[in-house]
């Protein structure tokens, strides 16, 4: 309640002004009573006036002294309390006895004292909280500093790593470039190989066709040979018969020869009587000899024919064998050509696949090369960013150190505040 701004007075309250008016009225009543009484007794107006003045003066002095005494005493008490407060003692209580304007002062003073106590208490709490917060902040800052060191070290490592990474990426990019060049060469070689294999395939096909034609031709030759051999075989069979007949003739001639020889011997032994028989025997012997010679000649001719036939048959057989072998060889060649062709086709498809795959690989390698360039750029950016991070962490460390310094000063201030607060003595609750 604002009592100092001339507001309406509270109920049951006596102001100093009222007290003074009442005191003056009472004094005036007393003076008038005394003047009346003295005047009645002495009938002297002047005396009565004098006595009344003296009494009024004495009454004024006594009432004034009493009134001022009561106000001064209360102000003195307030002054004492203020003096105690200034010395830091806030435990003193202000008694509110009267209901005058001084009470307003006392109430304001009491309120001020109370507010001061609350403020001090709050200051104490704030200081304590500041100190606790400072401690907590100190811990956090230590942690942040530690983390910042770690970040710094990590950033340094990342920077080194980025540098190494850049180097590796550059080296890898060079290797990939070289690999790409080689793969390009490989693709070209593959293309050349495909072309050569296609050529080989074409030649193999031609070869297979030629071999098949040769085989067909050889089959024809074999058939012809079989046809040619048939008369020879027939001749051979006839010759066998002739040989048998010639052998019989030879046997007959030999027997005739032997018979004529024995007849000659017998005729010779018969002497003169056997001369005619000897002549006949000799003739027979000569005939048989001729027959034998002829048979031998026929045999020789037959033998020659037979030998020639055998040679011819052997030649034919050999030719057949050779042609059969040739046919087998050409069959093998055809088979080999087929296998080769199949193999060449397989190789062609596989090499074509390899070429496609190599091309895909080249494209992928080109993509990888692009990625490596991007990676290189990223690594460089990383390096720059880590450098910036290092600088930032250093700056952060400096800021944190400044914060620590500020916190220390805050701590000192809070300590000072606490020390100041300790100077005040608060009432024990």
């Amino acid at each position, binding site marked *: 309640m604002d009592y100092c701004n001339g507001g309406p007075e509270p109920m049951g309250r006596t102001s100093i002004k009222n007290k003074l008016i009442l005191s003056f009225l009472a004094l005036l009543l007393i003076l008038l009573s005394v003047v009346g009484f003295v005047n009645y007794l002495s009938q002297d107006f002047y005396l009565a006036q004098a006595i009344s003045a003296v009494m009024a003066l004495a009454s004024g002095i006594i009432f004034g002294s009493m009134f001022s005494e009561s106000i001064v005493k209360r102000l003195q008490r307030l002054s004492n309390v203020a003096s105690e407060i200034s010395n830091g003692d806030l435990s003193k209580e202000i008694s509110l006895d009267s209901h005058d304007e001084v009470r307003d002062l006392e109430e304001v003073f009491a309120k001020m004292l109370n507010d001061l106590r609350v403020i001090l208490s709050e200051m104490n709490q704030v200081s304590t909280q500041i100190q606790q917060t400072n401690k907590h902040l100190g811990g956090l800052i230590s942690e942040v500093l530690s983390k910042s060191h770690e970040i710094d070290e990590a950033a340094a490592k990342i920077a080194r790593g980025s540098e190494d990474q850049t180097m590796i990426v550059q080296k890898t990019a060079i290797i990939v470039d070289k690999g790409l060049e080689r793969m390009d060469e490989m693709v070209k070689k593959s293309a050349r190989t495909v072309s050569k294999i296609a050529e080989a395939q074409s030649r193999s096909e031609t070869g297979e066709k030629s071999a098949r034609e040769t085989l067909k031709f050889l089959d024809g030759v074999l058939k012809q040979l079989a046809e040619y051999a048939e008369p020879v075989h027939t001749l051979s069979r006839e010759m066998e018969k002739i040989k048998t007949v010639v052998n019989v003739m030879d046997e007959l001639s030999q027997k005739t020869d032997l018979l004529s020889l024995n007849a*000659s*011997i017998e005729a010779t*032994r018969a002497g003169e009587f056997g001369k005619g028989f000897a002549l006949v025997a000799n003739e027979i012997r000569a005939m048989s000899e001729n027959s034998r010679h002829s048979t031998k000649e026929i045999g020789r001719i037959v033998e020659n024919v037979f030998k020639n036939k055998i040679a011819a048959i052997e030649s034919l057989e050999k030719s057949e064998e050779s042609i059969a072998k040739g046919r087998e060889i050409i069959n093998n060649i055809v088979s080999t050509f087929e296998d080769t062709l199949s193999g060449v086709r397989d190789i062609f498809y596989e090499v074509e696949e390899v070429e496609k795959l190599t091309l895909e690989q080249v494209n992928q390698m080109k993509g990888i090369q692009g990625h490596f360039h991007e990676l290189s750029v990223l690594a460089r950016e990383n390096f720059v960013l880590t450098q910036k991070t290092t600088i930032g962490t250093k700056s952060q460390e400096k800021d944190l150190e400044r914060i620590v310094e500020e916190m220390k000063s805050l701590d000192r201030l809070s300590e000072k505040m606490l020390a100041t607060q300790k100077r005040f003595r608060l009432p024990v609750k």
Partner: protein
Amino acid sequence: MRMETLVFKRSGLCLGIEIEYIRQVVRDVTVAPVPLTPPGYAGLIYYRGELFDVADLGIIMGKQHAIKSERTLNILLKWKQKGIALAADEILGLRSVEEDGSELEGFTLEGIQIKIITPESVWKMLSELPYGPRQI
């Protein structure tokens, strides 16, 4: 006097024998080998109820490696009741020689040296063999 001889060939040797002793010339008759007889003695021929000792003059006269023909001729001789057969490869023919001339030991026929043999000499050669047929 002239003497008629049969000229034959055996193991490369050309030999001649007087016709008077020849019984017959045969071919393809079985010669039965006799055990424990020397190589020059080829065996025995049984021909028309008579036995003939077969002499291989090629071996006896030093041609150890006589060419054995499948169709060997045999000249059957009769001398002093003895039957002797001479193995021959080929009969070259009949030839008459002077009995008391220089051809009695041998002569030349168409550039070939012919040696005259007798059944007696053949028998003697057979007898002189280490295990001859008559020594048993």
